[in-house]
């Protein structure tokens, strides 16, 4: 699909959001504002991408643009005009005629949005019955037509299935077909690819492009993933603390951001083109509206006195380009330099003496009579101080492999050697040093931290087990030192996990692993659930720990860009087997296995809008 920037100035906008302010009311009837005076115009046939960290008001904005009256959501002022009709002044009974017809919204978790106990055919039929006067036969043809557009081979068999019988990517595409069927004027997509792996993500985005072709629909596309926004949007809106801080054409914003926040987001996003280290943004979004100074001031590297003396307003810096920063004009060049990240990669070759050797490892799952081979004949060597990434789609056996090394899933065949000594399959049979030196960090810190333990207790467990030299009374102090090591305040010691943000939880999980002074860190998708800014900070932590202590890292991820940033070598896992293993540079420049090439091609890249749809294009990745 061609970008439609050219005719945007001619067509009048279909959606006008004017000075919109929104808040949430709490139990004590106090209203906390979360959006402050947001204005935005969207023309038909254009795609506006909205980016920002979690808690910046993106999802609330999305709900407001379709006039949604969520419980506890309070509209504090402003207008949302669709074709001259103010959605916020209308009654919900009137709006119901618009919702699903002219206004379409796809929520973040599609798997929970599709009714699990109704067949797909009936669910897809519903919006058509409500909003059109088609006959039964026409409706069916229409449904099959739209399913074909989102690349789903549709037949009666599919229509009689339940949502759980589809994969995550398929569910997402069915939801897309469902909202596109009524040919909406405005389509709002809230993180449509969150939690889907790279190859599936490409399918969903291709399906979106296909179904928008030739339609007048204006799209608002929300994502925390900058590369994804860059690959699909015409215009980009960067949100921070409930305000728009930068708005402009996608190409310009990503080529040279004018707001320090946008620049910091870019600097924290890993890229497959670039092996250099990412930079996190210190602190986290304030989670409220700040009106007396620049809301980003306390995290900004370019802060001056002028920034904290008053709140900056959104000012045009170029045609159709606005920035909320008092220093926007002076720091343009500095920002560009800021985005060109400092390299601190030091490559360690596999000549290092081996630390961990796996040979012919097999792992199976047994359920009932069937045996599933999760890991098949995997042999690999991790050198001392080496950072090895294992990439692959979900279900490729990556996590099982790590669990086997950690002693949680005894292999059915093959051997493991650690520091030249045999590593028993069962955790129980291992020596305390083997427990200590091999440390596993799980994907979801919400599940790996005991909800009933305080941070102090979580960190004291490994100290108690592995550091008998530290007397009981000093464990608390050691735990607080560990928190500082992962850049968290020791005041968090008394908190429970539910009182921490996702990034803080994962840092605590990392601190728990650091407590043991391990020789090898097994990291299972540790950054996949985090915002880019937090993800970058985590990667920096892992990198500096490995650099300072000489520890090896075995990093499992589905994100090739992350793998490129963190690793010296990369192994590609497909259906439980290693299909390619090479130095990070070599793998990205000269992939040899067809599956690796497929994976690399499924990576969205900032500068290629169409790259992911065509066949292999190796040159593009260099």
């Amino acid at each position: 699909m061609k970008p439609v920037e050219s005719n945007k100035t001619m067509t009048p906008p279909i959606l006008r959001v004017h000075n919109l302010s929104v808040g949430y009311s709490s139990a004590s009837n106090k209203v906390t504002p979360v959006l402050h005076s947001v204005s935005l115009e969207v023309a038909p046939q254009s795609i506006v991408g909205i980016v920002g960290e979690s808690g910046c008001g993106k999802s609330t904005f999305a709900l407001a643009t379709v006039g949604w009256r969520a419980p506890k959501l309070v509209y504090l002022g402003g207008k949302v005009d669709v074709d001259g009709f103010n959605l916020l002044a209308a009654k919900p009974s009137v709006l119901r005629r618009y919702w699903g017809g002219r206004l379409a919204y796809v929520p973040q978790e599609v798997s929970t949005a599709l009714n699990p106990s109704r067949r797909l055919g009936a669910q897809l039929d519903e919006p058509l019955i409500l909003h059109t006067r088609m006959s039964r036969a026409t409706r069916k043809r229409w449904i099959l037509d739209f399913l074909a557009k989102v690349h789903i081979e549709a037949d009666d068999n599919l229509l009689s299935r339940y949502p759980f019988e589809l994969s995550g990517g398929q569910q997402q595409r069915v939801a897309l077909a469902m909202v596109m069927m009524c040919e909406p004027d405005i389509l709002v997509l809230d993180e449509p690819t969150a939690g889907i792996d790279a190859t599936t993500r490409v399918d969903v985005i291709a399906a979106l492009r296909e179904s928008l072709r030739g339609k007048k629909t204006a799209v608002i596309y929300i994502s925390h993933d900058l590369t994804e926004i860059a690959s699909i949007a015409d215009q980009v809106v960067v949100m921070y603390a409930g305000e728009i801080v930068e708005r402009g054409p996608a190409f310009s914003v990503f080529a040279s951001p004018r707001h320090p926040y946008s620049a910091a987001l870019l600097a924290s996003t890993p890229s497959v083109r670039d092996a250099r280290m990412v930079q996190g943004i210190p602190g986290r979004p304030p989670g409220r509206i700040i009106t007396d100074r620049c809301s980003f001031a306390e995290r900004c590297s370019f802060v001056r006195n002028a920034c904290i003396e008053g709140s900056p307003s959104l000012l045009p810096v170029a045609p159709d380009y606005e920035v909320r920063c008092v220093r926007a004009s002076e720091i343009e060049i500095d920002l560009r330099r800021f985005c060109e990240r400092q390299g601190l990669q030091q490559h360690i070759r596999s000549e290092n003496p081996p630390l961990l050797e796996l040979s012919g490892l097999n792992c199976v799952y047994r359920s009932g009579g069937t045996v599933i081979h999760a890991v098949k004949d995997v042999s690999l060597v991790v050198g001392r101080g080496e950072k090895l990434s294992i990439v692959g789609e979900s279900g490729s056996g990556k996590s099982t492999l790590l669990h086997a090394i950690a002693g949680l899933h005894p292999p059915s065949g093959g051997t493991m050697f650690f520091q030249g000594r045999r590593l028993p399959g069962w955790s129980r049979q291992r020596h305390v040093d083997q427990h200590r030196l091999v440390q596993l960090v799980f994907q979801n810190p919400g599940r790996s931290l005991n909800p009933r333990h305080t941070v102090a207790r979580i960190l004291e467990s490994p100290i108690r087990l592995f550091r008998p030299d530290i007397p009981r009374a000093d464990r608390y102090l050691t735990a607080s030192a560990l928190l500082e090591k992962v850049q968290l305040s020791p005041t968090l010691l008394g908190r429970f996990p539910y009182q921490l943000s996702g990034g803080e939880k994962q840092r605590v999980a990392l601190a728990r692993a650091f407590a043991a002074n391990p020789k090898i860190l097994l990291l299972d998708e540790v950054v996949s659930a985090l915002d880019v800014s937090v993800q970058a900070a985590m990667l920096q932590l892992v990198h500096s720990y490995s650099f300072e202590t000489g520890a090896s890292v075995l990093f499992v991820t589905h994100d090739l860009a992350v793998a490129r940033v963190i690793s010296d070598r990369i192994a590609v896992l497909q259906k439980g087997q290693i299909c390619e293993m090479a130095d990070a540079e070599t793998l990205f420049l000269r992939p040899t296995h067809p599956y690796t090439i497929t994976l690399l091609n499924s990576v969205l890249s900032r500068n290629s809008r169409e790259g992911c749809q065509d066949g292999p294009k190796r040159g593009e990745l260099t």
Partner: protein
Amino acid sequence: MVPIQRPTPFSILLRVARQFTATIQGRIGFLLIGMNVVIFVVGPYLAPYDPIETGVGPSAEAPSPSHLLGTDTLGRDILSRFLHGGATILFVPLAAVTLAFLIGGALGMASGYIGGLFGNLVARLLDVTLPIPPLLVALVVIARFGGQLWVMVAIVAAVYAPRIARILRAAVQNLTTMEYVLAAEARGESQTAIIFGEIIPNILAPLLVEYGMRLNFAVSFISSLNFLGLGVQPPSSNWALMVSESTTLIPTNPAGALAPMLGLTSLVVGINFLMDSLTQYLSDETSRV
């Protein structure tokens, strides 16, 4: 910088007390049980007459200044019997349910955590015991061993242990695949440390609900036995026994019959309220994300 302090035992105690009385329900429950406990402990010292001595007053007399709740058919002072008769109502079920929890809890948690053949075997054995009617067991055992207190405790513990074991087995099974349990296994914690440190704190809510419910069932169960004339034998005083003794007195002396009934009811309601309140507090605490 905020000074870092390790929580003291006192601050933990304060937190627990706050947990119990987090809701109005909890405070009412606390009050009701408190009142009962005061009666059990102080009551016997306040009783104006000997509870088992007959003929301290005229037979079946209505309340008067010398007998505040009147007298029963044998001329015993009802107030004195009431003040003496509460302790067994609470303490026998308490001992019985605690014993049932020790046995059933250990079996259930072991079978849930270890799983495999052992776990299944234990679970099936427990299933076999479930259809046996508790009252029948009680009648047979009391007929053979008599109605001493320890027999009552043993009967209730034996009847409830399998039921408790099943609940705990299910709760533990859900948690064994949680990643924080895996993390503990991977760092080589002992099984005891995993069960007590990682698992039990997370099944506290269902555990307490179960404890409260079982305690209530046990109070009613033992009271039913007493009412039927099993267990505590006359002339010793006991609220349930008093209810059955005073049924004939209701028309002439309703207060004398009501006192033990109110005592029983307030105890059962109080336990319910307190446990409900605590459960709600515990589930609120983890659901706040």
